[in-house]
């Protein structure tokens, strides 16, 4: 590493010609005023070498380097340095600062050189604005205590309620350092023939917070299922609608049933809507309406109680947040996180409405749909903080992650009618998709560095078929492209988790194989793409 040396101070101007004295001063003899304007001799004042070190420098298992030094190479006319850089190309070289963990003491030592003027060299220390005024220390060797913003953790923790769960958590992911500016300066005067001078040197000291944080998620499996079906004929209509949903897991059960039946002729109509909460009866709602055999009747019943939602409680308990081993979970209100999970589940279950709309276009064929979904099941442990890299003057983003988390697992079973190649057809089958992250990794500044990224596509399965009415028949050319698509991406330093999950468009090439006419082959879209979920979770 070389830097351009500081320029020598500009030589003072030649004194103006001597003035003639009206008092009869002898010629060519300077007067007292002129004598004062003669150049004053500047004593040599400069240093050859400047060293920065912290408490850990040279301490085994702490920092292998003794110091970061800068020295003047007169031969080359350059400032040289012994800074070492990470072999990991993703770690940018740090040349302008010395990085330490709070609290620390920085030793600054100027040495060599022709000597100093009185009061030189001078070390100017400019801490961050919140950490005090600028100080000037005189002399070649100094030890300066540096620190990070005091009470930074509690100040930010106080914001959590105001800014919400996710933003509140995010502010603890690798906050920026407190930057101190150190400037060591001398006159830069050197005796001839030395042409180059060190003069002054400005270097930063970046101080990072010492805390190691850890978040944990351990979410039990909660699989929710919704089913709906509709079957019947038009005209002398017989119709049979059923709908049900159930939620299992976390030792709580929820069930919802809806039935509708209409029969032609004497017109019997029967409807029932039933919703049962969990097994402890905390939430229950029942509603019934009906008209049978010409006699109308109706009844409505509502029962409800305000028992706590077991799923929400379990979700809330599943999150932990520690700082240096101490639990601070209670400072986070998990409501936003719970709401996020519930919304995600709701969005996927919304697929049933999406398919219903398709199925209702061909009511003669009837439809049946079932969507099963599981979101955020499994565990995640992520530990992070700053650590000094033992091999040089830098600090790296330490992380350790262990994850076995199913972000989304969805299964959709479908059967509905549509018009395909100008004829009625039934689309049927099932598709599954699962976005799952399973790995463990720890930061290694020599290799993986802070830019660790894990990205996984969903694992998908299932198949979709099409059948036409008996007679002429429909053949699928190749495969119907249908199913789930997306990706989950986890950045590890700093932590971020992004995911998107969509229902891919149902597309295929179909041949209507005719027994008597021309067979026709065309591409058709059974359904358009249905975006389900895309967001940065953390």
């Amino acid at each position, binding site marked *: 590493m070389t830097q351009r040396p500081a320029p020598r101070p500009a030589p003072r101007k030649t004194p103006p010609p001597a003035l003639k004295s009206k008092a009869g001063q002898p010629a060519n003899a300077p007067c007292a005023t002129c004598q004062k304007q003669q150049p004053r001799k500047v004593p040599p004042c400069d240093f050859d070498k400047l060293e920065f070190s912290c408490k850990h420098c040279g301490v085994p298992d702490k920092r292998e380097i003794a110091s970061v030094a800068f020295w003047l190479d007169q031969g080359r006319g350059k400032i040289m340095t012994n800074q070492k850089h990470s072999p990991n190309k993703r770690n940018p070289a740090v040349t302008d600062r010395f990085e330490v963990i709070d609290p620390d003491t920085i030793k600054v030592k100027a040495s060599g050189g022709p000597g100093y003027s009185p009061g030189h060299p001078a070390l100017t220390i400019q801490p961050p604005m919140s950490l005090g005024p600028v100080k000037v220390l005189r002399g070649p060797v100094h030890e300066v205590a540096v620190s990070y913003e005091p009470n930074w953790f509690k100040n930010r923790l106080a914001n959590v309620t105001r800014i919400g769960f996710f933003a509140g958590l995010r502010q603890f992911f690798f906050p920026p350092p407190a930057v101190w500016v150190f400037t060591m300066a001398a006159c830069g005067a050197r005796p001839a023939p030395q042409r180059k001078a060190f003069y002054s040197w400005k270097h930063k000291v970046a101080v990072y917070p010492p805390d190691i944080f850890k978040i944990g998620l351990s979410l039990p499996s909660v699989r929710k299922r919704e089913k709906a079906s509709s079957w019947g004929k038009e005209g002398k209509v017989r119709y049979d609608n059923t709908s049900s949903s159930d939620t299992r897991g976390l030792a709580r059960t929820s069930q919802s049933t809806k039935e509708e039946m209409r029969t032609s002729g004497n017109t019997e109509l029967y409807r029932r809507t039933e919703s049962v909460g969990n097994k402890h009866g905390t939430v229950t709602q029942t509603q019934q309406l009906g008209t049978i055999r010409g006699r109308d009747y109706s009844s409505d019943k509502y029962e409800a109680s305000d028992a706590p939602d077991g799923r929400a409680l379990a979700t809330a308990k599943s999150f932990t947040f520690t700082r240096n081993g101490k639990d601070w979970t209670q400072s986070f209100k998990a409501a936003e996180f719970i709401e996020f999970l519930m919304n995600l589940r709701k969005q996927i279950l919304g697929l049933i409405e999406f398919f219903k709309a398709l199925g209702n276009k061909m009511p003669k*064929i*009837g439809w049946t749909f079932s969507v099963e979904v599981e979101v955020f099941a499994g565990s995640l442990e992520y530990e992070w903080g700053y650590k000094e890299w033992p091999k040089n003057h830098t600090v790296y983003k330490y992380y350790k992650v262990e994850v076995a988390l199913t972000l989304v697992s969805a*299964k959709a079973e479908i*059967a509905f*009618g549509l018009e395909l190649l100008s004829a*009625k*057809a*039934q689309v*049927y*089958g*099932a*598709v*599954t998709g699962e976005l799952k992250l399973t790995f463990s990794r720890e930061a290694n500044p020599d290799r993986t560095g802070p830019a660790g990224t894990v990205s996984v596509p969903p*694992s998908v*399965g*299932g*198949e979709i*078929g099409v*059948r*036409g*009415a*008996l*007679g*002429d*028949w*429909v*053949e*699928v050319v*190749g*495969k119907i492209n249908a199913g789930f698509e997306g990706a989950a991406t986890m950045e590890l330093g700093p932590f971020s988790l992004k995911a998107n999950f969509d229902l891919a468009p149902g597309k295929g090439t179909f*041949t209507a*194989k005719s*027994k*008597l*006419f*021309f*067979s*026709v*082959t*065309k591409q058709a879209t059974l359904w358009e793409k249905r975006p389900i979920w895309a967001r940065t979770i953390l």
Partner: protein
Amino acid sequence: MTIPVSTVDYLNVSIHGYACEVFVNRAPILRTPVDAPYTAIPSVSEWLVGGDNEIAVRIDAIAPPAATADPLSPRRLIVQRCVGPLGEIVPAGEDQPIDGLTYAPAPDDPTPTLPLRIAYEFRLPQGPTWAWQTAARLSLDAATTAELLMFLDALHADLVFGDIPGLLSRQRIKFAELAPLYGMTPASARAGLLQQFTELSKDGAWTVEPLRPDDVVLHLCCDGRVVEPRTRDDRPVLRGQAADGNAWSLPVFISRVDGMFEVVR
């Protein structure tokens, strides 16, 4: 054979992991890809005969085992014979199979020698006798092949010139035998074909792929009584583009009846 007016015999085919061809009485019905699941319900009444019948599958290739099993799309080979109401959709899973064949080797079974033929037989009561059953047995010698290519060329010319009456005259037996099976009269079927052609060739935007004799493969089937011409890549030889940009095709099965070639299916 039982063919009431309102019902039709069909196969419920569900195959994944096998490239195969399905036959009814040695007439090819469909071919499946090795790398994609295949499900279809082709109607086959016109290939069933009174007395002894056979449904067969010829396996030409087997897909390697999947890295992870997909329970919703398993490896399978199922062909079931069913009967259902003509013109109606039988929802998946509600087929009423009469009989069928399934190929499900155990995981530790040795790999079979390919092609592998699997078949089963069944009897049907007496019914009509189809023209192809009594057609002359063919051998694809040079003279017969040349004659067949000339017949194909005539069909191709009918399509190029849009001569639907000419085309219909060569499909007389097919329309006579199949129209009643599929709920039509021969006359209404002919009218239907004409109407479809009018739509497909609207504004004259109708193209027919050239007939290349070197690309035509003649497949003898039904004990040599029927010939199915296909291209080398198993496409119908009579095909082209319709006015709406979609592809049309006219698969044909040819027999020699009373000394003349006729389209029988």
